[in-house]
């Protein structure tokens, strides 16, 4: 029998040492050690070298595109994703289960496949690309708009899957009470529904944004990859590696890693915010 210690509470179940040992060993070897190698490589550069690399004109242009396109895509996803989640939770319509299952397609579809598929649909000769060009004068493929379209596809499930459970748990009786008291649909939405799902929406938005910033496979086929114009940061890292500029690749990778950690923090904060809200709503 294992007893209690400062480290863990006692339990009669076996296997603690074995499973925790294997978990921490595997995590350290596969994830933490390689990440440390990247940090180590970056710290071997001088400050001037590092600053020159991460604030280079081409790097700055790539951040603008990666972050800007991911932000626009996440906004569009927050809007349409909410409508989709709302329709799936609140309405009954033929094919609802099928639509619900399809939401996860971007999770399951390899990014290279969605990349060439979007390029085929939106290219100047693709069936949608032709029409958009003809009627709206809008070229999607090989411009920043194409990057946004790819990131909308990639980010959609994050928003829908975050908002759905929040809508299921939202208190319908509050909405009905507000309606009975004479509130219009927009007032009910603004004062009752939106506050209830806002934390979930923020979580979904941040997850879609974070995924969009790092996305590679679905973007590179539709973006055209012109330096300073349609070159995302992950692609710039790949290009630096191909030119054997390991320091440059490490510096950019380190910068993106910092941003990922920051966003992970935001997601955790949003989630604990939403947990506190639910607890309060239950009381």
């Amino acid at each position, binding site marked *: 029998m294992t007893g209690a210690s400062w480290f863990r509470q006692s339990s009669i179940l076996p296997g603690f040492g074995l499973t*925790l040992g294997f978990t921490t060993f595997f995590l350290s070897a596969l994830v933490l050690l390689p990440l440390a190698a990247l940090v180590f490589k970056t710290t071997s550069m001088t400050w001037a070298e590092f600053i020159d690399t991460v604030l280079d004109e081409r790097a700055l242009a790539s951040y603008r595109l990666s972050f800007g396109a991911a932000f626009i895509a996440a906004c569009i996803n927050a809007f349409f994703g909410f409508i989709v989640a709302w329709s799936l939770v609140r309405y009954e319509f033929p094919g609802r289960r099928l639509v619900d299952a399809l939401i996860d397609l971007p999770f399951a*579809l390899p990014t290279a496949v969605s990349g060439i598929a979007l390029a085929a649909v939106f290219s100047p000769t693709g069936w949608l690309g032709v029409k958009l060009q003809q009627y709206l004068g809008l070229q999607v493929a090989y411009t920043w708009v194409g990057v946004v379209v790819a990131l909308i596809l990639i980010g959609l499930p994050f928003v829908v899957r975050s908002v759905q459970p929040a809508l299921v748990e939202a208190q319908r009786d509050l909405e009905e009470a507000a309606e009975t008291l004479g509130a219009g649909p927009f007032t009910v939405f603004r004062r009752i529904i939106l506050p209830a799902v806002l934390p979930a929406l923020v979580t979904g938005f941040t997850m879609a944004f974070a995924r969009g910033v790092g996305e590679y496979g679905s973007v590179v086929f539709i973006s055209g990859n012109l330096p300073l114009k349609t070159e995302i940061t992950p692609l710039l890292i790949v290009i630096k590696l191909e030119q054997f500029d*390991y320091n440059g690749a490490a510096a950019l990778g380190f910068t993106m890693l910092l941003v990922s950690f920051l966003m992970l923090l935001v997601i955790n904060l949003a989630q604990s915010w939403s947990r506190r809200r639910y607890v309060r709503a239950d009381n």
Partner: protein
Amino acid sequence: MAGGAPRSEKRSHVSPALRAGRIGLIAVSISFLGLLLLAPLGAVLSQAFAEGVRVFLESFKNPDTISAIKLTLLTAAIVVPVNTLFGIAAAWAIAKFEFKGKSLLITLIDLPFAISPVIAGLVFVMLFGAHGWWGQWLQDNDIQVIFAVPGIVLATMFVTFPYVARELIPLMQQQGSEEEEAAITLGASAWTTFLRVTLPKIRWGLIYGVILCNARAMGEFGAVSVVSGHIRGLTTTMPLQVEILYNEYLFVAAFAVASVLALLAMVTLVIKTFVEWRADRRTG
């Protein structure tokens, strides 16, 4: 109790404006999803069969494509069991015991989800590449990791690392451990308890995690692309083969390989829906 009857009554008394709103929102949802999800899927199929079934099938006779399929299967055959084993161990440690630093451990397990696939490949280049931490030692001993199969396996393992653990941790936490404790108290061995008590309880969650892990392992592009070196017939997986064929304007062949990967995604979704349906029926 009061919710049931009035709701169905209300539905028939919905005002025309609300009904129009409802139809409008459903229409917006379906057209948005149709444009975003179905159009690309349709494009893959129509391009793959653009020159008929014969040409489609012909694409799979290319020796480079055949070896890409083999490498993808090999990678998944190594990565999925290892990550499944890890996921079960991690979930057991985290769900069955209370210990310090648990939430940090959960955050660290989720880390690969937050990291760009390109960075996932990059970190292995920094570790094993010619200019990496262990590069010199590996070169001296004539071991190649980067631009070779081990690198592809490691990068794939990195990006699919959290999938099984992610599914099992909340499930096992929610199920509690009374039954396991009872089995142990009655004298069952640890292994018997796991096989006869825990495994049947987590079966569906486990299947779900494994198929998601498999789909990602077979479809990973960014991380693998960084470490593979794109050596034809040797270090190209199916997604990389799609890229190579596409960049050579061999569109039918590229979309033919892509359609197999799309089929894999559809099968994954079907199994996922089935598993969710089973889980719903058991709890509901």
